[in-house]
């Protein structure tokens, strides 16, 4: 059974069909990429999975249970967490606070617990502070824990987005263009980090424009254009798929033969 499965999902905005009958499967422990030209509907796919939009048709399941129709916060609790393409950090809060807010669903002490600083409060806070410091250090934000999120350079803000998503304890992470705005060295590091996440047991669905990252890190790739699936398969297959090349480069028959 797939960990995440989209079945014939259709997402309509008025006259525009942003996701058009898309089916997609992510197995546990996989790194799967979702690619496609600008405006293909990739981010919309993430928005449907995470419940930001209610899908028009189809069904989305996580761990065999239907999650389409649930509220976003219920979907996070099931174990699906994401980052945003257009960074959405809590800018006026500190790096560590951002990480801790990511772990919100892992704390359940009550107001009286907080007011009387009970054992439950202290253990939960301590555990999650430790975890936050650990996660931040592992993603290269160790020296910035006290910094305010909006003061971080762009590349580090992207990492903080990932750290916040990890803190939720989710099983699957949906990363929306995590390498955007990173220099080659940074995206190289990012790839290493994404692999290390998989080794730690996370499953990853990745949207990325940086083909170097996509081809190197993915187990499988889905390609969408105008909301429709146009190809799927292993990186080598996708690299040489004429349909994909056409979608990316237009109908240029000369380069079709040359591969990617």
């Amino acid at each position, binding site marked *: 059974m797939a960990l995440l499965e989209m079945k014939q999902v259709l997402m309509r905005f008025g006259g525009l069909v942003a996701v058009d009958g898309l089916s997609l499967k992510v197995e546990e422990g996989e790194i799967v990429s979702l690619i496609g030209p600008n405006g293909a509907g990739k981010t919309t796919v993430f928005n449907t999975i995470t419940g*930001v939009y209610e899908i028009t048709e189809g069904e989305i399941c996580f761990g065999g249970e239907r999650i389409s129709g649930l509220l976003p916060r219920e979907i996070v*609790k099931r174990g699906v967490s994401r980052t945003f393409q257009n960074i*959405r950090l809590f800018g006026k809060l500190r790096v560590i606070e951002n990480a801790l*807010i990511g772990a919100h669903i892992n704390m359940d002490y009550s107001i009286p617990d907080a007011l009387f600083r009970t054992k439950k409060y202290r253990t939960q*806070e301590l555990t999650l502070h*430790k975890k936050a410091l650990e996660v931040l250090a592992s993603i290269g934000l160790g020296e910035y824990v006290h910094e305010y999120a909006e003061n971080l350079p762009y590349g580090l803000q992207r990492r903080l987005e990932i750290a916040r998503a990890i803190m*939720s304890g989710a099983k699957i992470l949906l990363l929306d263009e995590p390498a955007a705005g990173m220099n080659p060295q940074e995206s190289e590091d990012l790839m290493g980090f994404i692999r290390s996440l998989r080794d730690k047991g996370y499953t990853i669905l990745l949207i990325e424009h940086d083909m170097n990252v996509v081809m190197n890190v993915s187990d499988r790739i889905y390609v969408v254009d105008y909301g429709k699936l146009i190809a799927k398969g292993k990186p080598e297959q996708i690299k040489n798929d004429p349909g994909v090349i056409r979608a990316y480069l237009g109908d240029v028959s000369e380069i079709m033969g040359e591969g990617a």
Partner: protein
Amino acid sequence: MKNRKEKNRTENVSVRLGMLFRKKKAAVPAFLLLIVLLCLLPQVTSLYIQRNLIMVGFYMVLGFSLNFVTGYIGEVSLGHAAFYAIGAFSVSLLTTDAGMGYWPAVVLSVLLCGLFGLLLAFATMRVSGTYLAILTLAFFYLVMNIIQNWEGLTHGVVGIYDIPAANIFGFAFTMKNGGYYYCILAYVLFSILITRLLIGSRFGRAMKAVREDPLAATMAGINNQTFRVIAYVLAGMLAGLAGTLYAPFCGYINYLTFTYNMCLMILVIIITGGRGTMKGVIVGSLIIAPLGEVLRGLISLFDSLPAEYLPDPEQWRFVIYGLIMVVMMRLRPQGILGGKSRLDYRMPAGLDKKEGNG
């Protein structure tokens, strides 16, 4: 260049001061000393000064109350004096007409204010920005109109006379014995304490997350409405608590005791001091609350002039508030002490020091 150095130096001083207060060894005695000094204050000041200090105290509690909604959730409320009024009227009616003891009446009144906080939170659930501000204003006028017109319950325009003094174990508060002063001082400390305890917890973090980015907060699994409701209820209860002391302090209240100007003043306090900070509320109320009296004092210097040339301090106060707001918005929108702290984040006790420094 020199100026810059100067600024750096003062920053360093404030950072060092802040760090000093984080050291338990220094903070505890300093805090205790401050409390002792505050307790001694009414012994050495005139009743006039004490009265003003008490008013500062009331506004401080109101500031802490509004800070939950405007500072942490980030929603501007223009009707916050409504809770103050409900607390005051409720305690007055319970202690006069219903003949209840003071403290049971306080508890009931505070709970009632919490209920109204809940109502307001639900009424404003799907609105934001300007519409929300207007709804909170409508809430204020609604409450005041009910108070004015429901004669059978609130005595209508006549108001409530002879509100019994607040008391503890039969010991009645007066200005002379400092009862009101100590009580409001205790309420201020209480406000500081619960703000600190809650804001440092997951509740405060969630509120701030809702303020910073509601969608990102939802995606982190936060139920935004839950934390809005918590903030509104807390704010209602805290403002109500201030009201339950204000009524016996005045001895007489009517529907004109609580004005829109009061609502504005509470807002000006936290905007001037710095939304979403505790020191901002403290500094804001220290500056704004006595302003009316300072102005009165200034105008009385020109006593020799014929009365018709003298401005009415009550009216002019609000010209000054307006000016302060404009100047703050232009020069320092985050408030005098608002914005980012230069101190490190405070790690919870029990965390290895080295880890905390990352």
